[in-house]
Each structure stands twice: as C-alpha cells, then as structure tokens.
C-alpha cells in the first residue's frame, strides 16, 4: 500500500469554529497523512489551541468538513487513536507520576512491552516516580505529562506547546519522541512558537489567521 492510495489520516476542508457566532480562525484546508508531521503556526490568539481542541473532538465543527481516514469524523471511529496534550497537563497533583501513568494506562490502554519504570526512565523522571506531582518543578510536571506519549497507543498526536517549560534535554526528548512516532507511521500536529528541531524531513506548515 502506498501513501497515495491510503486516505489521509486527517483531512480538513474549509474548517472553521465559531464562538458566539464569530469565527475564531479563518477557514483551514489541510491533509495529514500517516508518517507526517505538521506545524501549526500563528500569533497569540490566532486559534492554535482551539484548532487542536477541535481536532481532538472537544469542540463541535461549526463550518466545513473534517474527515478521519476518508470518512466523516466521528467520535466512535477515532476514539483511542488520538492523543491530545494541552496546556492543562491532566496530571493529578496529589498523585505521583507513576500513579498518574497507571491511571492513564487504565483508561487509554498501553503499548505492548512497555513498563511504567521504562517510561519514567525515558521521560527523565527516574527517582521522581513516587513523588507527588505537586512537588515537581514545572519542567518535570511537563515531562510527567509527556510520558503519556511513550505509554499510550495512538495514531495521531495533537500537541499544544509541547516545548513549554522544558530544558535543553527536555526539548531533545520531545524531538526524539516526534521522530520515532513519525518514523513508526504515526502522525503529529504540533503547535509551537519556538523552532522545532525536527530531523525527519521538512514538516508541513499550517498557517493560522484570526
């Protein structure tokens, strides 16, 4: 099967979302195939976060069409195939990273041959696995959230500002995860202000206008 024959993972035609009847961003057209990475670019307030939440299924499409594997987007069809990581990290502050990950695995499932210890090690949280998330630094909290990328099976990652709060090693970690995911046939949509040091080919760019 060639990439051209398979329908794109995600396809948007004149996609827009309205809040109080006002479009949040100008209509968008894009296609995202398996094994592709797309950068969502735009100024503050241009609707990057809204777009990611819309694609994740948290919001209703106001106008235009959204296709998932060539068929109209439906919650049931892509449940468990999308991993959304927003500004709010979804980490319970009273629980440790390990407990948070165990809960995520219980809810979303986990990849084969993955252990929580392995995930914590790779996310750079070795030794912090049993501390309450409340006591971790902002960067470590972010790493605890990013650890879900290693744990959960998903075809499409929707990452909102994944580099925020991270140090140099954290940024390298995100880039490594992105490259591995794309090389493994996954697709990623990343919103970011900063430059992305992505080495898996020239990323597609989705330009947003308010």
């Amino acid at each position, binding site marked *: 099967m060639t990439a051209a024959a398979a329908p794109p993972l995600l396809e948007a035609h004149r996609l827009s979302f309205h*809040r*109080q*009847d*006002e479009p949040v961003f100008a209509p968008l057209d894009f296609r995202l195939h398996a094994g592709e990475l797309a950068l969502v670019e735009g100024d503050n307030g241009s609707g990057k976060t809204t777009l990611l939440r819309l694609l994740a299924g948290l919001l209703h499409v106001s106008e235009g069409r959204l296709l998932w594997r060539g068929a109209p987007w439906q919650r049931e069809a892509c449940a468990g195939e999308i991993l959304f990581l927003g500004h709010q990290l979804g980490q319970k502050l009273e629980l440790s990273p390990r407990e948070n990950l165990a809960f995520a695995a219980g809810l979303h499932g986990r990849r084969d041959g993955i252990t929580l210890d392995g995930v914590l090690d790779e996310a750079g949280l070795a030794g912090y696995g049993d501390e309450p998330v409340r006591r971790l630094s902002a960067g470590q909290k972010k790493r605890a959230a990013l650890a879900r990328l290693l744990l959960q099976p998903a075809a499409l990652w929707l990452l909102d500002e994944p580099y925020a709060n991270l140090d140099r090693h954290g940024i390298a970690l995100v880039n490594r995860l992105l490259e591995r995911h794309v090389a493994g046939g996954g697709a990623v949509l990343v919103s970011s202000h900063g430059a992305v040091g992505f080495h898996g080919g020239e990323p597609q760019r989705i330009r947003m206008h308010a």
Partner: protein
Amino acid sequence: MASWIPLWLHKLGSPPTFYRFAGALRPWAMGLALLLGAIGLYGGLVLAPPDYQQGDAYRIIFIHVPSAWMSMFVYAVMGVSGFIALVWRMKLAEVVAMESAPIGAAFTFITLVTGSLWGKPMWGTWWTWDARLTSELVLLFLYLGVIGLYHAFEDRRQGARAASFLAIIGVINVPIVHYSVTWWNTLHQGSTVNIFGHSKMAWDMLWPLLLMTLATKAYYVASLCRRARTDILALEGGKDWVRRIAEDEATP
C-alpha cells in the same frame, strides 16, 4: 401529507425571516391580548354574578386560573423548544426556549401571589402545602434555575443548551413532585382543598375565564415575539442583515 409545512418551518427557522415575521405578528397579538383581556375582565369582574359560597372573592380566578394554565403551557413550550435546540442545534429554538423562561416565571409568580391572596379569605391561610401549590412553587424554582443557569455561561448559545437540558429534566420532575406531595399529604392528614369540586361552573363565569385564557396566550405570543427579536439581534449582531436593519433605522 402537506409537504409545505416543514418547508415553511425551515424558512421560519432562519433568523431574518423570523425577525420580520415576529415583528409583523407582535402588534396583532398584543392588540388581541388587550381586546380579549378588556372584555374578559369586564365580563368577569362586572357581569358575572357573585358566587353563592365565596361571594366576590372568587373573581380572582379570572387572573389566577389563566396564569396557572400559562405557567404550565409556557413550561411545555420551553421544554419542547429546548429539546429541538439540543437535538438539532437550532438557534431559533434556543431563543424561544430561553426567552419563554422569564415570561413563564412571571406567570408562575402571579399564580402564587393571586393564589395566596385568594387563600386567605377562603381557607383562612396564605399558604397551604397542598400538592397543586407545592408543584407550582417547585415550578417557579425550576424556572429560576433555568434562567440562572442560562445567565451563568459566558457563551449564550452554550448557556441556552445547558439550560434547555435542565428544563427537560424539570418536565420529568414536576409530575413526580405532584404525586409525591399528594402522597405526603395523605400521610400527614393535611387539609384537602378542592377548588372546583362544589359545582360545575356557570356559563356566566366560564366565558370570561375562557376569554382571559386566550388573552394570556396572545400576550405570551406578543411578549415572546418582542423578546425573541431583541435576542436574535444580539446573537446575530455581526451579520449583514442586522447591519442593514440598523442602517434602515438610522436613516428615517
């Protein structure tokens, strides 16, 4: 089957059409409400004979009973349009549901006030925990809850959907409350009040009552038209057709 009905409804569902339609309908409905209300009140307060048991005090029914009917009728309208708003996400249904709520709450409030004014001479008390009264009070709380929830949201359309959901829960709740209070009263041996049990109503009293019922319905339509028009203008503020109306009104 008449296929023009859905088409007509569909056209009416578009805000500009409804805005024009409601604008045309409103003066007629208001005129009808005033006319019927004047005749009905004259018939009820002047022409109808005093009641052989209650004297003149019964005349409050010409306000009380139509309001009580309207309090439930408006709730039913709110529930149905709320359902349409939730299922088909139709903007006009949201507007109708949310703008009905204050009118219905007003009717419910009038019902409670007139009822207790009437209750003082008849039963010797302003308030009794009878099933009908309690249900009416619960209805008022439901209306207030719907209005409160609607205004708690920043996004008005989202607020309308949430409040519609609450209204639908209320539709199920009111009969349950009525039934449970009836059961409660039998348990507590409460005073059983039977308002119309003693006689069939004389025609002299009935026709003003029916006229008043129609008058309140017409008033509701007129009031809803006015409120809905305002609301639609606010919701569609940025659209071209609203801008054209504003320009028309600016240049006399």
